[in-house]
Structure formats: C-alpha cells, structure tokens
C-alpha cells in the first residue's frame, strides 16, 4: 500500500463516494416515491422512461438543467442565489459523518466506511441539518412575494419547534451509549446486544415524528402545501435552483432516515445481534443491512405521505409544544434515572 495510494487515492475515492452516495439515494428516492405513491393510489406511476421508469429522475434532472433560470427584478439577488446552495450543501456535508459499515481491512490498511469520525459526530449532523432552515428562510424572503414569505415563516416555526424534541431524544441515545460518536453508538449497541429502538421505544417514536416534521414531509408539509401556498417557499424558483430545493428535500429525508437507522436500529448490525442462532446473518456485509433498514424508513415516509391529510398550522404547533416536548423531557428523565440507578 504505497503512501500515494493511501494518502491521495483512497481519500479522493471516499470523497467522490460520499458525494455520489446521496445523489444516487436521491435518484432512487425520487423514483421510489413516485412509483410507490402511484401504486398506493390505484395507478402505475412512471414506467415508460427507461426500465420501469428508473430513468425518470434522470430525465427530470436533465430537463431542469436546461431550463431557463428566472430571477425577478425585485428579488434579493444574493439571498435568492445562496439559499438553494445552503439547503443542499448542509445536507450533503452531513453525509460525511454517517458510518455506513464495518471498517474493511485490506492488507495492512483499514478502509473506514465513513469520511470523518469525531467524538461529537451526532452534534455536527444535527447542527448541519438545521442549517438548511436558513436556506429555506432566505429563499422564502428573497423571492419577495407573499406566498413564499408565508411558506418560509411557517417552515421556520415548524423546524425550530421540532428541533427541541429531536434534540432531547438524541440526548437519551447519547446517554445510553455514553458518547456522541456515531460509530461508538453503533458499537455500543452491538456490545449491549439490544438496539436502542427497542430499549427506548418512546424516544424512537418521538424522534421519528419530529424527523418527519423536520423535513417538511407528509402530514407536516405545510410550508410547501400546494393546495394553500401554491408551492410554498420555492414558488419563485425555476430550473436548476428549484432542482436543488427538490433534491435537497430528498437528501434531507435520506439523512434523517439514516440517523434513525444508526441511532435506534444499530447502523450496520445484522438484526437480532443477541440471538446466537442467527449468527449466519453476519455473512451479509454490514452495508447491505444498513441499506435495507434505510429503505424501510424511506418507504415509511412515502406510505405516510399517501395516507394522511395535512395538519393545520396551529394544531401542528400545539402537537409539538403540548405533546412531543413534555413526552421527550419525561423520557429523558426516565432514561437518565435508569442509566444511573442501574
């Protein structure tokens, strides 16, 4: 393993992989969503473009690339341009910290399946995922028209108020695993033999609800409610800028789903780690298990979108301040007590 390969080729390869990984996931997610929602609604969904419609997201992306990029006169040029980048970059950056699998040993060199491992990885990922709120605010404000502004204001209040239960539940996991390092959390789940999702079901449920609300999806998609706010905060965006918003939403969904998988369902661990009889499952590489669980949660996103009507704004806020936050606080208290009494 010549130093050139170790110091240059592999990091570059990993960086390219980390940029390509969310892009591929976004393409798969766009196709999955349109097909699954269609099949749930008695229709077929895209199946003409490429094999079973797989090339549909590619066609959308290329078409959006060649669209004219309109920026009105009264728009605030700087913010209008920056906001899609902010939303997209924050999601992509967070992918560097997600451990996708067990480090692979090639000769003397161990190839770690993540870019960076930091003792406060969890904090960084949460911080980055809340930066995308700035993108939404700037985007809604810069368009300088009423509907995007209302969409942006709604999104700000929604995302900020849902970050509190998100943070609290993440704290319970950090307490259980005694560390903020994502890799450490997975290892700790492997050591303790039980996944935190089953150890602390309440924090998983609260985390999942606030995750769905955080990404403005399904019953909580008020900021971009087509039937009320025309197209929410990205009403005035066209062409590639809109493509950024469109893909960033899916990237954010994939990011939050992978967080759920890592924190509550043991990252790359094969299911039922404590049951010795099922050890043969370990032959399947960790990365595959990680993808299977991820796909399940992405499917759940789409399933929820197809069934639930949309919350009204005040009931949305009442739900978080009256139900989720108290529940998360009590849950944190219980976990801390149990942790230190045992």
């Amino acid at each position, binding site marked *: 393993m010549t130093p050139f390969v170790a110091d240059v080729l592999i990091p570059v390869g990993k960086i390219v992989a980390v940029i390509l990984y969310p892009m591929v996931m976004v393409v798969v997610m766009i196709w999955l969503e*349109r097909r699954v929602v269609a099949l749930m609604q008695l229709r077929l969904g*895209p199946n003409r*473009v490429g094999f079973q419609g797989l090339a549909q997201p590619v*066609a*959308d*992306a290329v078409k959006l690339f060649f669209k004219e990029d309109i920026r009105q006169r009264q728009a605030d040029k700087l913010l209008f341009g920056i906001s899609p980048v902010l939303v997209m970059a924050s999601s992509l950056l967070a992918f560097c910290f997600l451990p996708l699998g067990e480090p692979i040993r090639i000769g003397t060199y161990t190839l770690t399946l993540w870019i960076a491992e930091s003792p406060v990885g969890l904090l960084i990922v949460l911080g980055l995922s809340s930066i995308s709120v700035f993108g939404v605010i700037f985007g809604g404000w810069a368009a300088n028209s009423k509907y995007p502004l209302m969409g942006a204001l709604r999104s700000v209040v929604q995302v900020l108020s849902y970050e509190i239960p998100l943070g609290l539940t993440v704290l319970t996991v950090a307490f259980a695993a005694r560390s903020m390092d994502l890799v450490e959390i997975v290892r700790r789940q492997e050591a303790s033999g039980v996944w935190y999702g089953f150890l602390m079901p309440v924090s998983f449920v609260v985390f999942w609800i606030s995750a769905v609300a955080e990404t403005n999806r399904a019953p909580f998609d008020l900021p971009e409610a*087509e039937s009320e706010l025309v197209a929410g905060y990205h009403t005035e965006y*066209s062409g590639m800028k809109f493509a950024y918003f469109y893909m960033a939403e899916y990237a954010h969904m994939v990011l939050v789903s992978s967080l759920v998988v890592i924190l509550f369902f043991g990252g790359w661990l094969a299911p039922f780690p404590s049951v010795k009889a099922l050890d043969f499952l370990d032959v399947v590489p960790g990365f595959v298990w990680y993808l299977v669980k991820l796909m399940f949660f992405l499917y759940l996103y789409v399933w929820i979108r197809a069934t639930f009507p949309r919350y009204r704004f005040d009931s949305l806020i009442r739900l978080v301040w009256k139900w989720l936050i108290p529940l998360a606080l009590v849950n944190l208290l219980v976990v801390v007590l149990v942790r230190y009494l045992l």
Partner: protein
Amino acid sequence: MSDGFEKAPFLLTKADLFITWAQKNSLWPFGSGLACCAIEMIATAAARYDIARFGMELFRASPRQADLFIVAGTVTNKMAPVLRRLWDQMPDPKWAMAMGNCAIGGGPFPTYSVLQGVDKIIPVDVYVAGCPPTPQGLIHGLMTLQEKIARSHPTKEILAPHARRPS
C-alpha cells in the same frame, strides 16, 4: 425538420437527442384549469388513464416550475391578461397546448366576453379538439407534443439565443 440534422455538427445532434429525450419524458404540466376541460384533464391524470406513466403527473402549481401550459377551458376577455402573464412567468423552453374547442377557437360561445381562441395571446404548439376532449384524445395530444419536442433542436437555441421563437 429532418434536414436540420445534416447541417448540424455531429456532437450537437447527439446532444439534441439527449436533451429532447429528457424534455420529452419529463413534461410537467401547469396545474391551472379554466372550465369543463380541466375536469377531463384531472381525469386523465387520475388512476384509469394515468399520464404518470409518461412522467407527467407532477402538476406544478407555480408557473415557474411548469413546462407545459395546458389551456383547458374557455378563455374569457377578463382572464386573457392573466393567462398571458402566467405564460410569461413560465421559464423557457415551454410549450402550450390548446385543449378543447373553446381554447382552440371560442367553441360554442360566439359572445361578447369570450376570446375566440387562445392562440390570439400565446403561441400554441398542439391543438386538442373536443368539447371536452376525452382523456384518450388528450393523451394523443400529449404524444404528438412529445414527437414535436423530439424533433426540436434545443442546442441551436442555447448557442444562438437571439434566434428565439417569436413568443
């Protein structure tokens, strides 16, 4: 239209094919219906006729993200300036489809308040006759539009934007 291929350099024709393939297969209609034809347009997007198969089921509510403006219904004189403004708000390349006899030529209403044909205010690419046209008729219109897009040369417009179509 095929003569365009001989003169255009090889690379551009291949680029044309790829770009038109993408534009053809992801036509996002603009979710604005005027009258009876709008109900048939929604029925076409619904489960039985399902234009989602062609990737067209994303009815964008904002003109900024729409490619295809289906004028479905009667265009009155009061609605014409609004329609024209919506058309101008749509980013290029954009296509227009006059759905139903009212949009094509005033339909059964030769009256004081109806614009006798939407092509008086916006350039129309495909006319779909019928009052209202059946979903099969609309899908046939959409397919003709896809063929028209397949024959177009987007690279020529990108390289020489001043040669833009008189909109």
